[in-house]
């Protein structure tokens, strides 16, 4: 028994250490013991064995999910015997602001997802009006981890059990001094979340809900905390119709804590976000998402309606 545990552990440690060279490492160190009999699956590493579109797209903070909110799915094309990875670029444009998000994630054995992303929020002319200078930008770096703890969103069709995942996102804002001057308590913080995602296949419907514990103002682009420095439980949800194997359309909602505006009445209140999206996943390696997003008020009283365009590539 101990021998098998050691073998398992050795394989696990190598795979973790080799993350940047994952593809190479898995070719050199196959973790599968040799097959003994009859017909069996290939012994070398394989990739992208997941059903098309079941890894989701990438949300703005870098986790696999919809556009605004994480889902319980593990990103990338890897099954329980494989690893996968994706990279994404998302552009969000409102009348007054621009935001670009980009990053990458790796999915390990359909169990663990590690992600890194940056959100660059460009205040454009508003920055000049506020005395920060035209095009003043906030950059938020997000390091995320997500672990699938139970269920399978796709295959558990004989029960109501959804796929459940727990996640954390560490976020660090490069304008810590400024956001603190605006009334935030900190320039960095950690979000903790639990997501449950269920595909009701017989109805071609996907439902997902997330509870997030957060202190972040505008996902952290305006720092963390304000009127108080406590965690707020916020709800996020997605509902989507599977229109074909490669086309998904749906809506999302994401609640926000609104603590900064309560500390600094000069700033407009922070509103909940919602969107309507269409995602097209023409192959198992590519995904395009187009959305209309309502970001509500951001700093100024004007409501920000955004066009959201996202590209994801991976295996």
């Amino acid at each position, binding site marked *: 028994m101990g021998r*098998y545990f050691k073998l398992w552990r050795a394989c696990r440690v190598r795979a973790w250490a080799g993350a940047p060279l994952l593809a190479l490492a898995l070719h050199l160190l196959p*973790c*599968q*013991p*040799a*097959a*003994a*009999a*009859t*017909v*069996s*699956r*290939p012994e070398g590493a*394989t990739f992208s*064995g*997941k*059903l*098309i579109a079941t890894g989701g797209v990438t949300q703005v903070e870098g986790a696999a999910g919809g556009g605004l909110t994480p889902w319980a799915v593990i990103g990338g094309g890897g*099954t*329980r*015997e*494989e690893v996968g990875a994706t990279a994404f670029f998302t552009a969000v444009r409102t009348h007054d602001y621009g935001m670009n998000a980009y990053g990458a994630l790796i999915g390990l054995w*359909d169990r663990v997802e590690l992600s890194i992303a940056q959100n660059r929020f460009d205040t454009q002319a508003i920055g000049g009006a506020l005395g920060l200078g035209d095009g003043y930008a906030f950059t938020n770096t997000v390091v995320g981890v997500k672990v699938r703890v139970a269920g399978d969103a*796709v*295959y*558990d*069709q*004989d029960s109501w059990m959804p796929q459940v995942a727990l996640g954390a996102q560490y976020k660090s804002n490069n304008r810590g001094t400024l956001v603190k001057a605006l009334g935030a308590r900190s320039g960095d913080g950690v979000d903790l979340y639990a997501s449950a995602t269920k595909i*009701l*296949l*017989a*109805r*071609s*419907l996907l439902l997902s809900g997330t509870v997030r514990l957060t202190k972040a103002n505008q996902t952290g682009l305006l720092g963390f905390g304000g009127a108080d420095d406590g965690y707020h439980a916020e709800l996020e*949800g997605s*509902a*989507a*119709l*599977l*229109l*074909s*194997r490669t086309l998904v359309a*749906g*809506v999302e*909602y994401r609640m926000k804590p609104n603590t900064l505006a309560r500390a600094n009445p000069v700033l407009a209140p922070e509103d909940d976000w*919602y969107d*309507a999206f269409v995602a097209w996943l023409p192959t198992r390696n590519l995904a395009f998402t187009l959305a209309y997003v*309502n970001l509500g008020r951001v700093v100024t009283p004007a*409501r920000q309606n955004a066009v959201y365009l996202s590209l994801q590539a991976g295996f």
Partner: protein
Amino acid sequence: MAARRLPALLLVLTLTNPLAGCAPGPSPDLYQTFGGQPGLVALMDDYMDAMMRNPDLHPYFANANRTRIKAELASQFCALLGGPCAYTGMDMAMAHARYGIGDREFNALVQELQNVMDKRSIPFAAQNRLLAMLAPYRKDIVHVAPPPRTRPPLTIPPDAVVVPEGVPAERKTAPSRP
């Protein structure tokens, strides 16, 4: 304020739209959508051809009795869809126990079925109703590594078997036939 109710409205529309159309589960209508018995037989012919062309699946079917598998699958699908059949074939777990089938191979199987259903113009919603009934079989068919085939070798320590006294130590020659 109306704008704030928009997402709720969209959510309700999204939820009710598919619910209004069709009920999940087997029904004679669903069976007819698949073309009844002739439709299922033709579907299985296409399906087996597609699996034989798929490099991930070919090894599992190359030496199998494909005619029998096709007939059993047709009767199983007929029963699942709500047609006038009862599946009397092998238990799914039993039928697949000796194969090392992983997620990748099972997903390839699903995708080939989707491909042939597309080819036969079966509507996507009807495809998903069938797939939802087939999905629970995954736990009977797939064994995530290490699969049961890689059992530890059976080893018996030399002193585990005590030979009782009175038993001849070793027979030098085979007994000659009379």
